[in-house]
């Protein structure tokens, strides 16, 4: 008898207590979704901590950006959107915007002006690639190589990836066609400005896959940004593509014998969206946070913790030294003139139109 009563009582108590605490928290709490790891840490330091101190709002981190599109769809279907601000790459933002899952933003009205009075719209410029997207950083996908495995001739061109004679060993490439197809064509003699014209055609796609086929046996395919740094640290691969911030951390923070190959790096954007269908109170809080977190100083602050370039023009001169290592961050930015001699910008329009088609071909080729 006593046991049942205790069990019932304790269950009821915990249930009530948890519901009560959930209620109490809801009022002044927001869930921000991001990618985790060093990237989330940089946001925590540059945006979340000062914002929480300033406003008393409690920020909960959810590291679900990788499946943000699928989860937002499910939340929308279930009528229960639990996220307030979501960090996504630009192509995901475009998709979410098209599907009506993200809120449209008026930059001049909702975002802070630059310190010199330039409007937000002009300050972000071309990087506002979608009506729902507030850019935050410019990052690039590029190659790192083991300095002790390439002999006396460190690679200077992206085509070293396809040159298994000079640089024997495994390479790591991302398990998707984007970027790999462009690099393959570039190294198969296609001029940079013609890459997307060629890739639109069946023959062009086949040409790219044929070029990739020449190194297929030497490729380890990665799907998480942390894979390549791990493989490089292990000496399992001689070179591999990943995000430039990961390589920075590997080289400067972890002190591994790895060099950067900036040639033909592909720029991409990462930034915020606010999910559609939030209550007015939550929407107001999300907008307030966004306005704070994307102002000129905050974007420059983030570059103290990770080597991604701020998306505002006005932030660039404010980029300083790394918060712990004390090294100048500007030369490690993908946008630094020295690094950006030969670059691509992720072609949002092209991949929006051709992604499904080329993805299918790429996956079929992988499975062969």
């Amino acid at each position, binding site marked *: 008898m006593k046991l049942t009563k205790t069990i019932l009582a304790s269950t009821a108590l915990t249930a009530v207590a948890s519901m009560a605490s959930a209620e109490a*928290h809801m009022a002044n709490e927001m869930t921000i979704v991001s990618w985790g790891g060093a990237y989330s840490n940089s946001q925590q330091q540059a945006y979340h901590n000062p914002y929480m101190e300033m406003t008393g709002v409690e920020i909960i981190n959810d590291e679900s950006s990788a499946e943000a599109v699928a989860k937002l769809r499910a939340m929308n279907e*279930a009528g229960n959107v639990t996220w307030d601000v979501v960090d996504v790459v630009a192509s995901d933002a475009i998709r979410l915007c098209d599907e009506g899952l993200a809120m449209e933003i008026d930059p001049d009205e909702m975002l802070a002006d630059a310190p010199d009075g330039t409007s937000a719209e002009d300050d972000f410029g071309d990087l506002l690639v979608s009506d729902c997207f507030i850019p935050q950083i410019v990052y690039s996908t590029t190659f790192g190589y083991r300095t002790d495995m390439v002999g006396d001739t460190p690679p200077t061109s992206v085509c070293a990836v396809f040159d298994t004679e000079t640089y024997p060993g495994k390479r790591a490439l991302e398990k998707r066609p984007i970027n790999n197809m462009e690099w393959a064509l570039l190294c198969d003699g296609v001029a940079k400005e013609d890459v997307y014209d060629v890739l639109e055609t069946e023959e062009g796609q086949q040409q790219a896959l044929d070029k990739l086929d020449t190194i297929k046996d030497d490729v380890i395919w990665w799907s998480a940004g942390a894979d390549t740094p791990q493989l490089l640290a292990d000496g399992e691969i001689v070179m591999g593509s990943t995000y430039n911030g990961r390589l920075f951390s590997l080289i400067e923070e972890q002190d591994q014998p790895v060099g950067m190959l900036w040639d033909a790096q592909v720029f991409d954007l990462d930034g915020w969206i606010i999910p559609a269908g939030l209550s007015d109170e939550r929407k107001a809080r999300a907008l307030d946070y966004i306005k704070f977190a994307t102002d000129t100083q905050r974007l420059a602050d983030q570059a103290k913790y990770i080597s991604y370039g701020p998306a505002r023009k006005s932030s660039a001169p404010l980029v300083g030294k790394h918060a712990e290592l004390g090294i100048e961050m500007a030369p490690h930015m993908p946008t630094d003139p020295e690094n950006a001699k030969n670059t691509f910008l992720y072609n949002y329009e092209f991949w929006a139109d051709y992604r499904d088609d080329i993805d299918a071909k790429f996956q079929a080729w992988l499975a062969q």
Partner: protein
Amino acid sequence: MAALTPISRTPVSFYVPVVAAAGAFAGLFVGTAQGSGLLGIVVGAIAMGALAYVLTQIIKSETPSRWGTVVLLAVVGYFLGGLPAMVIGGIFGWLFAWFSFWLYEGRYRAKVPPYLTPMQVLWHFTFRVICGAILVFLITPILVVMPLSFNAENFFTFTPEMLRFDPAGYSLKHYRDFFSSSDWQNALRNSVMIAPVATLLSVSFGTLAAIGLSQPHVPFRRAIMAVLISPMIVPLIISAAGMYFFYSRIGLQGTYLGVVLAHAALGIPFVIITVTATLVGFDRSLTRAAANMGANPVTTFFRVQMPLILPGVISGGLFAFITSFDEVVVVLFVGSAGQKTLPWQMFTGLREQISPTILAVATILVIISICLLTTVELLRRRSERLRGMSPG
């Protein structure tokens, strides 16, 4: 068991090829590590075959041969790969010297029945080797994780310092990271808050269901049982997606209570199964005797039935606890970031940033699991002993 079969020495044409074959097998691994698997096979076969011949035909005396081989192979190992290879070489030396004499003296026949044919003897030992290989296959991944969790680097890599057994290559920093990082501590707190409550609910409901379903007069017993067991059979991702939409509608998604209920639903089948199994050995005449003496059903349950089926209840509860403690799919759907549990944190950690902190946590969880499973096993033995004693 005493020696069943008189043993005699075997001919050279038998044991040298067998030892050579074993040497080829070991050589495959050593050779692959040194760069050429094929060369390893050949060298391994020749070296070990010759070794067996020299030990048994030329040196003959067993004890010095064994120690000599250990030293010899340890030295070879040291030149091939330093200190760790020396240890491995020593172990190989001990193994091969023992193996040579074991075959040469015919000791392998001593403990098998005398009427077995050579093929049956062969199968007798092949079977044991296969069992051992499966065990190694299952355990190795776990054993690799443990030393790596003491890595001084931030990668899943055996550094040269670690392989030299240099203390500088080892550190407790990933354990420190686990105990000092607020992310991991929140996750641990959530897991510790969710699992016991979910277990409590699973045990209460599961035990009641098992007792009810063991009554012969309950209609549709099999159908009800099937429904209750279904969370164990339905793919987890399907339960999770279903729970997500259902809990969203009724406002439980993203709450502590929601995760607890979801985990309780997953734990109930384990409790039902273990308790039903214990009830099979339970003597119903005991409850009738209690009723005869004036005890009401509730008193009978707590005073008579419960103590007897307690081992089943506890082992079911432990399974339910481990289910909740290790579960990642359902909590990803039903929970929100505020209910991030340890497995969830490990999952995101693995995907976004491969840090050995995960290995440190894994090691801690493995140790907890071993403790829990040992408890289950001890309880099971106790229950078996009790059942053996109970009448009927």
